[in-house]
């Protein structure tokens, strides 16, 4: 690594970190493409047979093999597939004969709208709930709140969704559509009522983790020295909570949101299927049932790349919002510690003075 000591003061210190992080993300994306390719084209002994079923005539199998380029060596297949994917061409859906990218584009918008709705609901709710539970730590409300959250956390998310469908398909509960079949002619924002139940179901399953995280980091922050100092200076408690403590407790929540999004993508698949919501999850489900290979590859690739992107953005936000990291000379890897830990028998012994400051 070049020496950054004589870097001009104008370059932000985190830029070098970000470039490294970007490279890491790209590398991850490449490995992901490899995994998706191996799982779909290399691992099954004959993808054409998987697609057409065990008793398809030989000619149609050969035709499909030629159509998908399966008669080429694996490396050629992979390079061709990767090259096309880089240009935005994910192949042509076997089921509907429409380019996969085109099919995915509309579906992706629907899923993003769903996830945006969930975040808009969960983040403020988790913040207020987490802070208020932390302020009433170990009192009855806190204990009851935590029990309720554990109950929510333990219930598999698709059961929550089924429960909501059950509730709203009962007579007299018709004021919200129990299934979200969208009219493709109308824009999404005119059909918002059908978004409500999927958003609520997903929010309920995402809420416990974030709330508990905010609560824990709030409690930790409230016990720190600067809060004691602020109290001694007579700053009102309300201001201490919202202006001094919360911003510090928020940074871990960014990584929490990223992690939640990752689990939400899986949960969204089930919820979309249950509510018949035309998102990317129902597309994957249908593609798997139709054995539509290019579609499966496209959906999985898009989802995993989205997760990589989310992690990247979360890391960037964390660095930018934490003054200590933003101005640091060298930003270490956040959360996932990539820096090789030296084996303990090779580690230089810390001097007692260092040990004291460390604790």
């Amino acid at each position, binding site marked *: 690594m070049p020496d950054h000591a004589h870097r001009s003061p104008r370059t932000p210190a985190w830029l070098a970190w970000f470039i490294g992080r970007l490279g890491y993300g790209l590398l*991850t994306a490449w*490995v*992901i493409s490899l*995994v*998706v390719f191996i*799982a*779909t084209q290399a*691992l*099954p002994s004959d*993808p054409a047979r*998987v697609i057409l079923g065990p008793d398809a005539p030989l000619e149609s199998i050969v035709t499909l093999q030629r159509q998908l380029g399966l008669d080429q060596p694996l490396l050629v297949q992979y390079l061709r597939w990767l090259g096309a994917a880089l240009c935005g061409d994910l192949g042509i859906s076997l089921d509907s004969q429409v380019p996969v990218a085109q099919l995915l584009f509309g579906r992706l918008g629907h899923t993003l709208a769903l996830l945006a709705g969930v975040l808009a609901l969960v983040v403020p709710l988790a913040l207020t709930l987490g802070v208020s539970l932390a302020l009433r730590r170990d009192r009855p409300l806190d204990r009851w709140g935590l029990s309720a959250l*554990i*109950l929510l*956390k*333990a*219930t*598999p*998310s*698709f*059961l929550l969704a*089924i*429960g909501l*469908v*059950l509730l709203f*398909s*009962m007579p007299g509960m018709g004021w919200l559509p129990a299934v979200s079949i969208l009219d493709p002619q109308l824009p999404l924002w005119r059909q918002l009522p059908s978004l409500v139940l999927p958003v609520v179901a997903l929010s309920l399953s995402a809420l416990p983790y974030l709330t508990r995280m905010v609560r824990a980091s709030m409690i930790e922050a409230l016990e720190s020295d600067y809060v004691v100092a602020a109290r001694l200076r007579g700053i009102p408690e309300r201001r201490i909570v919202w202006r001094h403590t919360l911003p510090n407790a928020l940074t871990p929540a960014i990584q929490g949101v990223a992690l939640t999004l*990752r*689990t939400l*993508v*899986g*949960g969204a*698949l*089930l919820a979309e*299927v249950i509510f018949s919501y035309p998102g990317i999850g129902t597309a*994957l*489900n249908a593609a*798997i*049932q139709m*054995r539509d290979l290019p579609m*499966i590859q496209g959906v*999985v690739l898009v*989802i*995993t790349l989205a*997760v*990589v992107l989310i*992690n990247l953005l979360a890391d960037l936000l964390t660095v930018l919002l934490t003054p200590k990291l933003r101005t640091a000379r060298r930003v270490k890897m956040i959360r*996932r*510690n*990539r820096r*090789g*830990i*030296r*084996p*303990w*028998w090779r*580690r230089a012994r810390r001097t007692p003075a260092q040990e004291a400051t460390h604790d």
Partner: protein
Amino acid sequence: MTETRWLADPQVRRGAVITALVMLLALLGPWLAPHAPTAMVGPVYGPPTAGAPLGHDFLGHDLWSRLLSGGVSVLWMSVAAATLALVVGGSLGLLAGFSRRRLDQAISWAADVSLAFPDLILVLLIVSMLGRAPWLIVLTVAIAFTPGVVRLARGSAVAVAGQEFVEAAQMMGYSRWRILFSEILPNILTPLLVHFGNMLTWAVGMLSGLSFLGYGVAPPAADWGLMINENQAGLLVQPWAVLAPALLIAVFAYGTNILAEGIGRVSARIGEKQP
């Protein structure tokens, strides 16, 4: 000794009792069931009667018998998947936390990459391409869970490895493996155990979700997740056919979850290291 300390906590006891009850029901169920799970003995979506306490399902199977026989698959598959992930991930994590730079980086990076796949998507991808044999499903769910265990075990191992007693063992010339498995492993067992409980909860949710989507246990057999799927159409006529398996799944997940939470809380209270 630690076990008795854990059992002193009411939450741990409650979790253990709930988990044990559902396990007992699922394991003994097939023997207690009055009818075979695939025997059609009544009207389609028949209401509860004296002979069939929960009524009948979409093909006229006795719901109670099907419920009793449908737990084993969910149970053994989730326990097997979580155990496999714990063993493989735990060993890899220990190895990573303990070994030199290269191996550590390789393992950690592999764990990071696989964490980019949402669990359910990874499992769906593999199951849809390779088939839905039960052992394959268990294997893929375990693969999906392993990176999490690796990271947890590695983090805890690194924290423990710096402590004096490990250095003492090092001085006394113990072998690598002895240090790993008899010095470090016992000290990171509690966080791993808590994680195991959480994994059980996720596995139950994921496996029943898979069956619900139709990629899990094959149809004629009884399975709680599958039962929710096949009886969905009769939701309004015979709500029990969906509610009963859903409730059992939820109760089992709840039991394992508060058990794990309780153990984690007790160990935090008695001052064990929590990563």
